[in-house]
């Protein structure tokens, strides 16, 4: 078994990276590996509650994050600094997460066999 860490760095809209990365996370979760997920930089916005994409005509894929627990993605982290820099708090996020200091994030990356960063 390998430890796989997905790092989500991109905002949910503006580029297609976040949405296609989520497909990869869901696929990886089917392989019975140890999957962790961390949101940092503008990737934090992917978890923002009350996303409304109607005006821009894009699909709102944020509800999928609520299903991650069903997909065996149990460890979900957010870098505290990135959250604070964007003026957000835990209650602004759509799912429960564990906050990490930047040093803890560094250690988390070190502890994984495979890093997939989008």
């Amino acid at each position: 078994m390998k430890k796989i860490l997905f790092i989500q760095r991109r905002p949910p809209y503006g580029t297609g990276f976040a949405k296609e990365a989520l497909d990869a996370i869901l696929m990886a979760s089917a392989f019975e590996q140890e999957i962790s997920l961390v949101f940092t930089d503008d990737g934090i916005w992917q978890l923002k509650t009350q996303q409304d994409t109607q005006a821009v005509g894009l699909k709102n894929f944020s509800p999928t994050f609520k299903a991650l627990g069903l997909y065996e993605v149990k460890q979900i982290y957010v870098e505290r600094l990135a959250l604070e820099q964007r003026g957000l708090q835990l209650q602004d996020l759509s799912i429960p997460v564990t906050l990490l200091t930047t040093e803890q994030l560094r250690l988390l990356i070190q502890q994984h066999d495979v890093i997939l960063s989008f």
Partner: protein
Amino acid sequence: MKFAILINSAPFTYQASDTAYQFCQAALKKGHVIHRVFFYHDAVYIGSNLLCPPQDEPNPSARWQTLARQHGFDLAICIAAALKRGILNEQEAKRYGKLSDNLAPEFKIVGLGQLVEACLSADRLMEFGG
């Protein structure tokens, strides 16, 4: 060492896929093995058989195919990323009622599971672009 390669960026616009190509060349020269190159996001355009760059510039599709043939590794294109961007093999072109297909011969359209499998089989994943 056995490497899996993930490329995320479009050809021409970004240098990432060129860097990945040079990395593979260098690794192979040192006796390492490339298990699979997986093309995701806009990198799927590299699988097009219709690229016509100017003659004094490299053709990314052609040179990846040459390297893969020489060293016997997979060129795998994500099916979900490819279909929406109009990169189709014969089977998918038929399925979607398109007049033509455009996937270059050495490339294979595969599921995302092949990316995960590559991560698990290789000693190390190298990611380029994105």
